[in-house]
């Protein structure tokens, strides 16, 4: 019996499980924001609806950038595991570049909306929209900061098991944000573009 209630194999597995639990608490946050958005999406108070403000081609570019970023993060982790430092740095740079591109496009989208007078104060729909998309954007910004800290640590202390574990957690975080974006892309942007 005690054999089945086994402790986790090592420190790595314990850390990863802990980080997963954090990600799952984030799932609840995003779930609540999605529910709020879906309830309020037609309450535009005479202002623009999602169909008026969505620019499908911009969103498609953002999505491709984030998917590519997630892929290069996975490749970076692979390169780290198989001791390929040169490839690792290239993939990390690509991950950072795609992530930054995504974030800048999102900030651009927000700026355009606010400049046109459609800020989060304009309607219940826009409040929910900014809260949902903005929360995801803040996560991306924190992820980019995290990646910079990791690269700094690599430069000062080199690669060890500790670093490999830390980078694994970052990759987990990054893939998770990609998954959240799939639902944003579908429920906010594609439903909006199709006028559903």
């Amino acid at each position, binding site marked *: 019996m005690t054999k*089945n*209630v*086994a402790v*986790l*194999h090592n420190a790595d*597995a314990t850390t*990863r*499980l802990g980080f*997963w*639990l954090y990600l*799952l608490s984030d*799932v*609840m946050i995003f*779930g*609540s924001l*999605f*529910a709020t958005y*879906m*309830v309020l999406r037609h309450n535009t108070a005479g202002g623009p609806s999602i169909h008026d403000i969505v620019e*499908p081609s911009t969103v*498609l570019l953002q*999505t*491709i950038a984030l*998917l*590519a970023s*997630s*892929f290069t993060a*996975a*490749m970076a982790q*692979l390169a780290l595991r*198989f001791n390929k430092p040169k490839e690792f740095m290239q993939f990390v740079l690509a991950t950072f570049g795609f992530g930054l591109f995504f974030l800048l496009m999102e900030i651009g989208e927000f700026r355009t909306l606010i400049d046109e007078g459609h800020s989060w104060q304009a309607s219940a729909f826009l409040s929910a929209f900014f809260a949902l998309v903005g929360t995801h954007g803040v996560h991306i910004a924190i992820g980019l900061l995290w990646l910079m800290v990791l690269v700094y640590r690599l430069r000062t202390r080199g690669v060890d098991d500790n670093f490999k574990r830390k980078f694994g957690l970052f990759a*987990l975080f990054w*893939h*998770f944000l*990609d*998954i959240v974006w*799939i*639902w944003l*892309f*579908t*429920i906010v942007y*594609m*439903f909006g*573009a*199709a006028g*559903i």
Partner: protein
Amino acid sequence: MSVGKKTVEKAFENYYYQYALGFIGALIITYVAYFGAINQWFGSLLPGVLLALATAQFFIQMVVFLHLGKEDKPRYTLISVVYVFLMMLIIVVVSLWIMKNMNYNMHAAPEQMYEYMLEQNKKGF
């Protein structure tokens, strides 16, 4: 020694192909959803198709990039993920359900509401 190195390269390539395939699959699904949405394909089925595509991509990402379900037993991560997503779905779906009915039921004028309450009282507790 050289054989060992070859095996390592092989393992690296296997992962690489797996990730590349996952990435390409995700791109294809994204494009189908995109062109489906802007060209209004699938008619009235469009919302369902978009949600199905998102679900498919969700599972691809979960398995390919997050390696879900590939951990050794006991599968604490898998159990936690299934449990939390179930809870999240309940929160989202039931919130939508309640709010929909609330909008429907909140149209009563005060007098109508009063009548309704009297009617309910007649039924007894």
